[in-house]
């Protein structure tokens, strides 16, 4: 079977959505002529024209809100916010409008809006271009958050998001775009929003999603060489969160390490850790550990950036510690 990059898979997903549904349009900065800042929408302008591949001015708040209105008006807009860093300028429309309209109106309106954005660090882009706000978005009732971490999910999560009647945020890790793999079968409707076991193991559960999934899998491979069998649970969706599979896995392995590229304090990993405490405390053989980013604005220098973010070695060390005891 041939391998595909996540970028190509995302591109094909967009192309399919535009082909199958004339209500779908892509709005974002440099999505058209430029081809997308991560080249995901390359060549789509030629195929679908400037009405549906709509280059937007530098107005994150404005065009995200326009996405809300367009969704209310019967279109199926996909908003591309170049990176999560700039989503800070659009948060008002996401949090105060997209997420609230259904409830504030007593259930009269749905906002079928999809917002894609690149997220994460790892390319020496320093403190303003390396953020991870996964937990922030997952914090908001009314939003849903999908985090593709496999090429199969890169290929099919957009369709899941578009099929949903409510606002969905797709967080695409910037380093994930060039990961490659084989595209598998699309998730069944039952599995669309559920966590997936990417590796079965008996000694501990590594919990990851999005850009951290490949690191968790690499760590599991190294651990296997030492005789530690790690289960790897890919959360896939942060809201809704598949509590059932999370708790089921940890109850079985009795140990857990959560990998999250956000800063540790107030991270989504903290939420996962609390869920495990609520659901599996008495089955645990060790405290839950978190591998997160260091509490510092992202430094530019390569060695410092590496030191600030979760690396395979950090995950391996945390896993050893929960299995053998001692500090990570």
């Amino acid at each position, binding site marked *: 079977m041939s391998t595909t990059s996540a970028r190509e898979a995302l591109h094909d997903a967009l192309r399919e959505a535009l082909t199958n549904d004339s209500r779908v349009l892509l709005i974002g900065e440099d999505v058209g002529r430029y081809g997308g800042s991560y080249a995901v929408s390359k060549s789509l302008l030629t195929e679908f024209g400037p009405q549906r591949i709509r280059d937007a001015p530098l107005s994150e708040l404005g065009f995200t809100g326009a996405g*809300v209105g367009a969704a209310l008006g019967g279109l199926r807009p996909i908003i591309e916010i170049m990176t999560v860093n700039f989503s800070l300028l659009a948060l008002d429309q996401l949090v105060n409008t997209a997420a609230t309209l259904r409830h504030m109106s007593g259930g009269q309106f749905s906002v079928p809006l999809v917002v894609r954005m690149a997220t994460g660090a790892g390319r020496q882009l320093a403190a303003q271009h390396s953020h991870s706000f996964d937990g922030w978005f997952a914090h908001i009732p009314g939003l849903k958050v999908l985090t593709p971490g496999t090429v199969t999910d890169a290929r099919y999560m957009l369709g899941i998001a578009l099929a949903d009647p409510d606002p969905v945020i797709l967080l695409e890790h910037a380093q994930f775009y060039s990961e490659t793999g084989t595209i598998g079968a699309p998730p069944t409707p039952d599995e669309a929003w559920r966590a997936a076991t990417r590796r079965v193991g008996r000694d501990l559960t590594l919990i990851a999603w999005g850009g951290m999934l490949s690191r968790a899998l690499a760590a599991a491979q190294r651990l296997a060489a030492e005789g530690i069998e790690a289960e790897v649970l890919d959360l896939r969706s942060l809201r809704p969160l598949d509590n059932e599979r999370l708790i089921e896995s940890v109850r079985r392995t009795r140990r857990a390490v959560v990998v999250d590229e956000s800063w540790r304090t107030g991270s989504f990993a903290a939420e996962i850790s609390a869920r495990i405490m609520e659901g599996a405390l008495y089955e645990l053989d060790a405290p839950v550990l978190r591998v997160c980013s260091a509490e510092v604005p992202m430094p530019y220098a390569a060695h410092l950036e590496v030191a600030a973010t979760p690396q395979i070695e950090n995950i391996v060390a945390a896993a050893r510690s929960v299995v053998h005891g001692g500090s990570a």
Partner: protein
Amino acid sequence: MTLRGIHPVPFPIEESRELVHQMLRIRRFEEACAEWYGLQKIRGFLHLYIGEEAVATGVIHELAPDDAIVATYREHGHALVRGVPAKALMAEMFGRSTGCSRGRGGSMHLFDAERRFYGGNAIVAGGLPVAVGLGLADRMLARPRVTACFFGEGAVAEGAFHEAMNLAALWQLPVLFCCENNGYAMGTALARSQSQTDLCARAASYGMPARAVDGMDIVAVTLAAREAAAQVRNGAGPAFLEFQTYRFRAHSMFDPELYRERAEVELWRERGPLHTFTDRLKAEKVFSEADFQRIDAEVADEIRAALEFADTSPLEPVEDLLRDVHTPQASA
């Protein structure tokens, strides 16, 4: 400039009566709201529109049933004129399950999907980008509709205003921007917060037609809205209307009004849209005090019924707390 008192009212008498009726509905509805706020049946923020009635009345009078409206937290009047039943509105003010937003919205978040009334947004300028998107959908689906977006002059200082104006003009979208310039954003007068106080100049800089209108004159408002809505509907792109108006009441029920003189309020009250219009109709001898009393009695009945409906309506059961966060879906 207003032509009041120079030319006769250019509407058939039935239309004039309807404008009086709608302005009076807003006035009496809000007087009742203030009263029942005092009785603690209505809580939260309550922003009254009294004094500004001509703007919503005149503009919405010119909209077609499938046009859309996006408004602010000061939107009771817009919802009423649009046809959202007073009962459903008052029940919403009372936080009841029969309210137009099931008691989830309150005064600042009135909605009505059937009437394309997109609320009630309590973030200053938050509605403008949404209106742009509604216009985009109409444009792409080739529907000859207008989206009327109401906002205060305070919103002009927000980034969302400028982003929305640029997008609407750049993409030539059918949005009618209706700025309700009542002179103050809470306690901040326009000149104290904005370097360019000519709001039309700012709108015009985005390449759209912009016009200042006497917002105390229902005739001027209606005619300006008629012309602008027709242009927008015919594909001329967005337009901007600045309605110069004044709120007679405090910003909200918490406002001690330290920032303006009573004399200023009194001066504007003399220009009140309701009595100046009825005086004019009376001077033309097409409308009498008895006509006014008849309409007022009819409105009083409507408001009384709305209050009774609201006060006797059930509360949403607490078991339903979590409903309407997401759209229910048929399980796969």
